[in-house]
């Protein structure tokens, strides 16, 4: 059972990487590129078959290990 966990910076937190990519591509002529946000995506494969349990476990993993609550938020999605 696979889940996707996307971990991204909270809206207000500076994303220097996204900014650098956007600015550099802008200078290279990609004027249509208005913004770039960078985040991380994890795909976890979990044993067992009960979807609810799986989702709970994926959420726990995201919360306790993958995301930094100080600056990041996460979203879990069944694949």
């Amino acid at each position, binding site marked *: 059972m696979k889940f996707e966990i996307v971990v991204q910076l909270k809206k207000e937190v500076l994303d220097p*990487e996204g900014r650098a990519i956007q600015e550099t591509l802008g200078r*290279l002529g990609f004027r249509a590129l208005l913004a770039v946000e960078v985040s991380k995506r994890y795909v976890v494969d979990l044993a067992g078959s009960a979807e609810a349990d799986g989702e709970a476990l994926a959420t726990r993993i995201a919360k306790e290990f993958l995301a930094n609550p100080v600056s990041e938020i996460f979203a879990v999605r069944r694949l």
Partner: protein
Amino acid sequence: MPRIGLVQFPGSNCDADVALALKRGFDIDPTLVWHTETKLPAVDAIVLPGGFSFGDYLRSGALASHSPVMAAVKEFAKKGGPVIGICNGFQVLTESHMLPGALLRNASQKFVCKQVELVTAPGSTVYHKSLFGKTSRVPVAHGEGRYYIDPEGLKRLKDEQQIVFRYAENPNGALDDIAGIVSENGRVLGMMPHPERATNPLLGSDDGLAIWQAFLATFM
């Protein structure tokens, strides 16, 4: 007097060290070339120095490889002009596809700074011939130096004797202990270790001088 172009990207930070090494070791004053230049000045060879061009954002070397100056450097290399890329410069070379393969995050996932020993592989370029049989002590300092290439690519590198340096002790998980490779025509060298930092025994080693010497010998 050899004319060497030293390319500067925003975030390059070993440019001054390279200039100092060339000055102290060979009394050469390189010409600085800013990344926005579309044409190279009249030079005999090009150095792409180490550092964190564009903050290493996206992938190290990726954003720099699209700089205007890199089109000119590619042109220069296509005509057989000698180029050396060190650390981030090597990453720029692979990202620009001027050298095969890719440099990935170290297997340890950590930046590593230490002296390493480099073993020169056999081959027919100036680099191979002038350095073969020596081990060189040269420092590495990088977070993304794990050389990777697919199996066919590796086979080609070996068949064509494009591998120049191997680590005696692999610091980053590089495939086949690869620390430095050269283009098929032997003119474009990329290496992770920093020969510009190994130019005086007081700084830990002067084995880098022979590497610079070999670079100069590609066109002198």
